[in-house]
């Protein structure tokens, strides 16, 4: 007999969710792949707390806890683990595990005892953390495991792992698998939310597919394969896998190097050497998630190399250079200005190309009118706070298209993007490539980055471990997302 821990019965919350039937049993990992982003946040919200529903019933441990007539906002004992950690960065591991939890009422703390308990609890999961280590000093993987242990200590019955590959490296995902399996055998239930079936299938025992706010398929273990999935993601394959596109990538010659890293050393980067050619797209893939932050700091000009050189167009990188664009992680939040109008956001970094753009309103309008249809927004209005993530992403990347930089560096461009957003992003990257922009993609998970890459450079211990050309991508064995057809 299955021990059901959570069930949604005919849950409807138009226009986001329609007739959702879903059940999770004790000790299993259930995948959830949203082909588009519609309704996903609302669904995860229903997992966490009682929210008003148009119709439907919510059961926890087979007891009705919420339905369409209830109005309580009660929270469920469910933990969501995503990029923004629930741990308090400035506190130690012991405090996060034992003090910041329900029922932790001790007035006087005996740190020696807590440290001892912490080490005992973490040892089975392969973690050996010195006493009173602050969370901010720990790598992403260890923070993730501590959150899982915290979930266990809090007697959480369901843990939602939301797009963890966007902040945990591929090597760490491999290390995480046995830990999750162990916690499962102890009765914890997981909902693994991801955008790529290749990744979700590695973890999940069964999987739900979601599209337009509906559960469109419940895949059991024997159905979790590429053949079945191809029926659900054919639009992606049709758009991205066209012969013309592939030919364009294969034919592009890459003369002159735009970016040159020569025996570069800084922080976790150790003697890193590579070049990015003119109009070339390179994926720098750091499976251990060690070197990328340091490399991005060097590109931003915030840090100086300890040894070696890093140049773009023959110069030391500087953010003031309009021919360079750097897109950090969570680009939407950092690159959009809500107080500016849609048009001003679009033209924000193009004033070096169009003289007097800020003085002449008519020029700005002329530039913005072809894009008006694309955004379905009044270009003179400030960016509406309720603007969805797809529109925001489109705004950021169309600004880059207008800027036409010679070099673009993007960190994890496909993170949190649904299939349709990823298709649009690939189209924009293709356009940039056609304009001759050299692109460097820094990634900890491959996602769809290989679709737009000419070369893949694998970084290990801070230096290039090996290199694959586009025609050799199929050789890569790992948690890869989509790989271009040969």
């Amino acid at each position, binding site marked *: *007999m299955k021990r059901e821990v959570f069930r949604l019965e005919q849950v409807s919350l138009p226009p986001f969710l329609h007739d959702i039937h879903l059940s999770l049993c004790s000790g299993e990992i259930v995948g959830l792949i949203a082909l588009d982003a519609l309704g996903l946040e609302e669904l995860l919200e229903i997992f966490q707390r009682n929210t008003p529903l148009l119709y439907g019933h919510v059961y926890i441990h087979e007891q009705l806890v919420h339905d369409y007539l209830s109005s309580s906002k009660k929270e469920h004992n469910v933990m969501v683990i995503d990029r923004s950690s629930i741990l308090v960065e400035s506190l130690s591991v012991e405090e996060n595990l034992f003090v910041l939890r329900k029922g932790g009422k001790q007035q006087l703390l005996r740190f020696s005892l807590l440290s001892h308990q912490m080490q005992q609890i973490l040892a089975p999961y392969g973690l050996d953390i010195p006493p009173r280590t602050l969370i901010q000093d720990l790598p992403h993987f260890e923070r993730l495991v501590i959150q899982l242990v915290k979930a266990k200590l809090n007697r959480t019955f369901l843990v939602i792992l939301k797009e963890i590959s966007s902040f945990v490296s591929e090597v760490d995902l491999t290390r995480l698998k046995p830990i999750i399996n162990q916690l499962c055998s102890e009765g914890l239930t997981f909902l693994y939310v991801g955008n790529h079936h290749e990744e979700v299938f590695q973890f999940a025992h069964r999987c739900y597919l979601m599209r337009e706010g509906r559960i469109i*398929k419940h895949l059991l273990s024997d159905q979790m394969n590429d053949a079945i999935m191809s029926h*659900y993601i054919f639009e992606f394959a049709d758009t991205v896998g066209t012969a013309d596109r592939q030919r364009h990538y294969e034919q592009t010659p890459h003369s002159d190097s735009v970016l040159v890293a020569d025996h570069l050393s800084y922080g976790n980067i150790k003697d890193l050497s590579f070049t990015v050619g003119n109009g070339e797209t390179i994926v720098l893939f750091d499976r251990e998630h060690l070197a990328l932050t340091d490399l991005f700091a060097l590109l931003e000009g915030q840090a100086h190399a300890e040894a070696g050189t890093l140049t773009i167009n023959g110069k030391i990188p500087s953010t003031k250079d309009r021919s360079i664009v750097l897109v950090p992680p969570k680009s939407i939040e950092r690159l959009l200005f809500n107080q500016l109008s849609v048009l001003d956001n679009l033209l924000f970094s193009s004033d070096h190309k169009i003289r007097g753009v800020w003085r002449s309103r008519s020029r700005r309008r002329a530039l913005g009118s072809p894009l008006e249809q694309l955004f379905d927004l009044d270009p003179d209005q400030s960016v509406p706070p309720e603007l969805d993530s797809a529109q925001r992403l489109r705004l950021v990347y169309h600004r880059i298209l207008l800027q036409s930089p010679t070099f673009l560096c993007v960190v994890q461009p496909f993170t949190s993007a649904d299939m349709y957003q990823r298709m649009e992003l690939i189209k924009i990257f293709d356009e940039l490539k056609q304009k001759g922009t050299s692109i460097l993609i820094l990634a900890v998970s491959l996602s769809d980055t290989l679709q737009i890459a000419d070369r893949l450079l694998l970084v290990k211990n801070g230096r290039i471990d090996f290199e694959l050309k586009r025609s050799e991508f199929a050789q890569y064995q790992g948690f890869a997302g989509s790989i271009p057809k040969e």
Partner: protein
Amino acid sequence: MDNKQPFLEQRLILFFILFTALLVSAMLFPLILITNKSALMVTALVLGCTTIALFGYGYVHILLPYRRSKHILRLFASGYTLTTIVDESIPLNKELLEASQMLIELVNTDQLMNESKRQAQYLALQNQINPHFLYNTLEGIRGEALLGGLESVATMTEALSTFFRYTISGVENLVTLKQELENTQNYFFIQQFRFGARIKLETHFEEEDPEKLLGYRIPKLTLQPIVENSIVHGLECKIGEGTLKIRIEHTKTRLVVTIRDDGVGMQKEVLQRIQNRLTTRSFEYVKRDEQEGGIALMNVNNRIKLLFGEQYGLNVTSEEGVGTDVVISLPKSKEDRGDEA
């Protein structure tokens, strides 16, 4: 009915009286000021607090229940629920509650149940007189006879008669899962004479001891119509082999049967239409033309909901080229509730 039942009407009257009293007090406020200026602060405070308390009461005990009633009426109008048209915890007034009960009595269970039973019987009978069904079955018998193997003719005839007998006997009874599965397998066996090895049926129990599951009782003719639907609309149109999988699992309170086929699947519009009809409840489906498809699914869904409650029933997902999944959710029951049905 409990005479102490709170009604929204009484609360509204109370709110009106208190509000009038508050207005009168506010009007008397200048008089108090003239007679006793020192009481200014105290009186203002009391009046302020009373106003806040009154409006708080109005929000929690009048506005929220009113919104709930409105929501129930909207759900009733859209067909999501037929159980009630008033919020039974706080009805608007006694008359509306009585009218609602009368309406439900008229509309609900009996009539729809009878219609559903009649239609289940009709669908079953239709199968028996369906010329294609009979023709194909008899052709099978004839073919087998021609080949001279009397044993297979006997087997097939037996299967056919068993199927007819099971189908004709009372539709209203609950039967064991074992009986229903046997009938479904029997039906599949008959169909296999048409399709040969092209179609396969697999039954999988998510329990070490299947006997534990086979004793649970489910409404008669729950599985066979869905299997028939899968064969006719899913596997028959498919080029090549097709597999039908029945998966049975149970939780503490529920029995869940999933019928999966890897047939041609449904078009998005057809699926959406079926899902909408499964979500809402009405008589409309009874009058529909069978060509529209999904009538058997609606019939099974309605019977389950009427027997066990709206939280049980069918859920259908389908994709062209992948196949169709029908999940049947039922309460776990081992008692004979046939008489109740």
